[in-house]
């Protein structure tokens, strides 16, 4: 159309503003991180937030955009985490790498390499699972992925080299502190931009994915699979591709988790437990943010993690009456209530499929006149 040049100019302006905002955020971050007090508090939060944002957005690809409920997302994160941890441990045992004394470039290389390896292994395993699982009807898939998650957990727990206790004990905990990838808090602070940049790149990729032909195809499959097939879309291919990409990013999140944690246990990657590290919490996050809204997932990830952080550490909780405190000792109870109430009143989440867009914010009137976007 004739407005094409106008549109691309607007794209450039939006991008410039976005980069400028990013620089400001990073500047504020670097100033606050130079303060020792803030650094101790902020650094672990940032690492965890990046992991949750990656988990939430990647699960939204399958749950929100593809419309397939999968309940074993944490299983893929587990694969990524264990692969990253074990591969870095192998490097260290071979005498090639010591996290404490490694030069910066080598450390970044190992962190990136091992996380990517974890992501690729998670992707391959999800591909092998997806081919049979995605042939099934929607609600069976939920159970099958839940089962897969349990199998992954079960198998990892039974791997002799992942635990040290092996088959007999049935629980694995690779103690990686000081002798693997699990870097200490000083290094975590030093390399805090690593997870931030990685997350930005990954989320950007997911945005690109969902706004391209791939996004159109999977949204069409979500709306009506038969009609999508009848529009010439190879539904099976796009389903498996999206499932694999989703697992890939979950694996990458697992890599980040392995870097930021001193030891791994399979209990972290299960369907439901008393902490927030479980598949259900990620499902709640996606539902709350809106199924089909990546920005919604990011906001929900930040909001829910901070809420949990406050419940765990906030002074205001300690000041509350005893019976409320005892409820707050079970955060999943609160999230379950929130989940049920949100879905009763807004079945597709608070933001639905609405994406927060800087571009629309800036050029609201003229965009609507051109009519390039829905709504």
């Amino acid at each position, binding site marked *: 159309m004739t407005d094409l040049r106008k549109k691309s100019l607007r794209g450039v302006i939006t991008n410039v503003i976005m980069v400028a905002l990013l620089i400001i955020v990073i500047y504020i971050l670097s100033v606050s991180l130079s303060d020792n007090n803030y650094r101790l508090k902020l650094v672990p939060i940032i690492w965890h937030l990046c992991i949750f944002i990656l988990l939430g957005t990647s699960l939204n690809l399958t749950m929100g955009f593809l*419309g397939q409920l999968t309940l074993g997302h944490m299983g893929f994160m587990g694969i990524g985490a264990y692969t990253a941890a074990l591969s870095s441990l192998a490097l260290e045992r071979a005498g090639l790498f010591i996290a404490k004394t490694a030069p910066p470039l080598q450390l970044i290389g190992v962190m990136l390499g091992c996380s990517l390896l974890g992501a690729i292994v998670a992707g391959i395993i999800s591909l092998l699972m997806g081919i049979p699982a995605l042939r099934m009807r929607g609600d069976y898939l939920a*159970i099958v992925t839940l089962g*897969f998650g*349990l199998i992954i957990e*079960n198998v990892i*727990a039974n791997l002799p080299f992942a635990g040290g206790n092996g088959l007999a004990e049935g629980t694995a905990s690779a103690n990686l502190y000081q002798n693997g990838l699990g870097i200490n808090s000083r290094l975590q602070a030093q390399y805090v931009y690593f997870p931030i940049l990685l997350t930005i790149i990954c989320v950007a990729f997911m945005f690109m994915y969902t706004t391209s032909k791939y996004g159109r195809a999977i949204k069409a499959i979500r709306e009506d699979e038969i009609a999508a097939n009848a529009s010439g879309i190879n539904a099976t291919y796009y389903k498996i591709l999206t499932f694999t990409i989703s697992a890939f990013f979950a694996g990458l999140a697992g890599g980040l988790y392995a870097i930021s944690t001193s030891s791994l246990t399979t209990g972290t990657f299960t369907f439901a437990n008393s902490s927030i590290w479980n598949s259900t919490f990620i499902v709640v996050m996606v539902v709350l943010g809106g199924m089909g809204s990546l920005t919604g997932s990011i906001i929900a990830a930040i909001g829910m993690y901070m809420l949990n952080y406050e419940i765990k550490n906030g002074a205001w909780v300690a000041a509350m009456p005893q019976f409320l405190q005892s409820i707050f000792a079970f955060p999943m109870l609160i999230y379950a*209530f929130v989940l049920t109430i949100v*879905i009763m009143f807004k079945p*597709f989440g608070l933001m639905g499929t609405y994406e927060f867009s800087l571009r629309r914010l800036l050029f609201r009137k003229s965009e609507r006149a051109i009519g390039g976007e829905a709504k």
Partner: protein
Amino acid sequence: MTEFLQQVIIGLRIGSVYALIALGYTMVYGIIRLINFAHGEFIMVGGYTLFFMIPVLMGFGLPAWTSVFAAIIICAAVGVLAELLAYRPVRKKGNRMTALITAIGVSLILQNLAQAIPFIGPNPKAITQDIFQSGRIDLFGVNTNWTSIFTIIIAAFVMVGLQLFIHKTKIGRAMRAVSENKAASTLMGINVNRTIVITFIIGAGLAAVGALMYCAQYRAVMTTMGSMLGLKAFVAAVLGGIGLIPGAMLGGMLIGLIEALVTAYISSSLANALVFVVLILVLLVKPAGIMGRNVGEKV
């Protein structure tokens, strides 16, 4: 050989519990196409009711197993509340995925609420009383305990009773009609919502009976007891063909046998994973389960 037969009896005992719980899943799924994730938690509710009621009823001089009637009432009440407060409102608004997420939410609420209630708490509680006659017996040369015998017999009675109820009574016919076609049932004068509520009552009641059998064998209750039990019972329902009552029975028995034999002869820590492997293999060959017919979507 006798050891193998012993394992088969154990398998049938576990399978009876799975089958009873699977019936609850399959009936609810058959009628509203919802995987009632909270069904596992109904078992937990039943278990705790038994835990609290057994001493009370025994104080009145009644046998311990009579507490199952209290459990049935409480479970049915919880089931009806879940349907009325959560499932029905969401069914009107959302799609099948949102209904499923609601069920997960209800399940988590029940489980975590139980943990947050001070006199229940997250720690397991032991049931010290005998629910059935204690001791072991020799059955055709196979040594087993009375609990297994009672469990299998009760399960068989309940299943026959349920089959008769579904096929011979008016309510049973209404349930079958609603599961075939909701709109047409309404036109035939069937109160669909009431039929759904009755289904929840029966399903939750069966979960309470399952809880009795579980408690008789393991003599302990805990807030997470329903999760894995419920999940495997659901697998049993899918394996047999979801929505089909004979399918749930067959699936339950199969899962019980697989679990008992894998535990005895391969590895106890792999039993859970293998149950899912079997499910996936069966669904690949028969997507609608062993007894299910493959019905495509209407175009």
